């Protein structure tokens, strides 16, 4: 079997008292084993919603999502999600945060600490095992959250703008680290981002979504050798192409906000 994930005609409608919002509209795509897939799109295009549906935190209004042929009915450890927000448990230190998934699985302390320490080292926070989240910077917290998800050994790693709140330098380092981990651990990664650059730098394929309601506008395979250089002609050409596709959509979403009364 080639595909780890199949998203079939998935739509998501949010219903509130006043109105219905179609967030995701009839999306279909597959994700291959060990693939690094990015999703870009204008704000509010439903990319986070899509990710949350894959994680099992939201149910599709119609359509279905299959993982290894089985329908996803709820959240599970085989699909780890790194949230955009800071989500460390504030009463646990770094070590116990990273070991959390293994702990609820019932793994003995010694064993889970060993694994957690390995991942803490990997994200460059060796020596911070005893630190509490409030003692860490935002970037450090996000790295711990990534380590926590990876230590839990999910088959699919879902990442929702995980580097969004970080400065450029930290961001570049973590992108590099993420690729290294992905290559080493043979994970499947689905990565939602605002940054076209980031998507091209990281991914095997980039999905470009339309403004709300979110549909797939285009899927662009990135045929570049890794490690990629951001200043090569090919890279710049990919960027130009995706930015162009995206520009219309961003404008559209902007107009939608302005003329929402007419819609």
């Amino acid at each position, binding site marked *: 079997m080639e595909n780890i994930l199949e998203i079939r005609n998935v739509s998501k409608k949010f219903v509130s008292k006043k109105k219905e919002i179609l967030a995701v509209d009839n999306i279909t795509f597959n994700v291959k084993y060990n693939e690094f897939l990015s999703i870009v799109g204008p704000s509010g295009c439903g990319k986070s919603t899509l990710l949350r549906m894959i*994680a*099992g*935190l939201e149910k599709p209004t119609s359509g279905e999502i299959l993982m290894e042929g089985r329908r996803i009915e*709820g*959240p*599970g*450890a085989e*699909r*780890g*999600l790194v*949230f955009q*927000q*800071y*989500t460390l*448990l*504030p*009463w646990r230190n770094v070590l116990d945060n990273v070991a*959390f*998934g293994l*702990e*609820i*699985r019932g793994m003995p302390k010694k064993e889970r600490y060993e694994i957690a320490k390995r991942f803490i080292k990997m994200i460059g926070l060796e020596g911070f095992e005893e630190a*509490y*989240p*409030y003692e860490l910077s*935002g970037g450090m*917290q996000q790295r711990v959250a990534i380590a*926590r*998800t990876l230590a*839990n050994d999910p088959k699919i790693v*879902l990442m929702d703008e995980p580097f969004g709140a970080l400065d450029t330098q930290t961001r570049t380092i973590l992108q590099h680290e993420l690729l290294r981990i992905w290559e080493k651990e043979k994970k499947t990664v689905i990565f939602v981002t605002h940054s076209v650059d980031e998507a091209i730098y990281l991914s095997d394929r980039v999905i470009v979504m339309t403004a709300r309601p979110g549909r797939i506008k285009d899927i662009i395979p990135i045929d570049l050798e890794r490690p990629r250089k951001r200043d090569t002609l090919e890279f710049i050409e990919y960027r130009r192409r995706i930015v162009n596709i995206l520009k219309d959509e961003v404008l559209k979403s902007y107009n939608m906000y302005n003329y929402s009364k007419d819609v």
Partner: protein
Amino acid sequence: MDIKKVIMPIVGLVLWELLAIWLNNPVVLPPVENVIKILINPQITLLGTGTLVENTLVSIKRVLSGFIVAGVVGIPLGIFMGYFSTVMDLFDTVIELLRPIPPLAWVPLALAWFGIGETSMLFIIFIGAFFPILLNTIAGVKGVPKILIETAQTLGAREKDILLKVVIPASSPNILTGLRIGAGIAWMCVVAAEMLPGSSAGLGYLIMYAYSLSRMDVVVASMVIIGIIGLTLDRGLRYIEDRYFRWRYLIK
């Protein structure tokens, strides 16, 4: 210690002493030294009703019993009410109706149900401590950020793990606040409950008995003890809050 903090207590003591000398009537206002004499000799039997220490211990024991029962019932109920909306719907109306009733309004019913004596007093203390514990626990559980629960779910947590490893630790600072407020109210209730008929020991009883014998020095000495213990209780629990739940104030 900051000198400004002790100025007013000293001024108060001096005024009290001057007033007592001027009035020269210990039945209205006992002189400071009479009260201090009782406080520094807490092992002396007072008015044939036991020593100050004995009476204090009786009150503390009652508070602890009522308070512990309130915690044992209030915390789990609060957790379930905060977490499961069905449980909330079941109990919410009843609790909202009972909550505004002051503990002392329960006295006649308590006496009718449990008779004059220990059980009635425990019941009053229980009522006093129960609601702050329950309501703070509910607020704590409801205030657990949804994203922490979702995080746990994507790491494979089941309902039991979420409750034990996310919801309870996340709401524990609020639970402790509830316990602190509950303890304060319980301490007030015990004194009131001990003033009821049928009581034969405790600080509240001592106050009422001394009053009937016009021994205001004993009344005031007992009041001082009540104040000191209430303060210690509050400070102790605050210390635990600051020491073990520091993360609560420092979340980024």
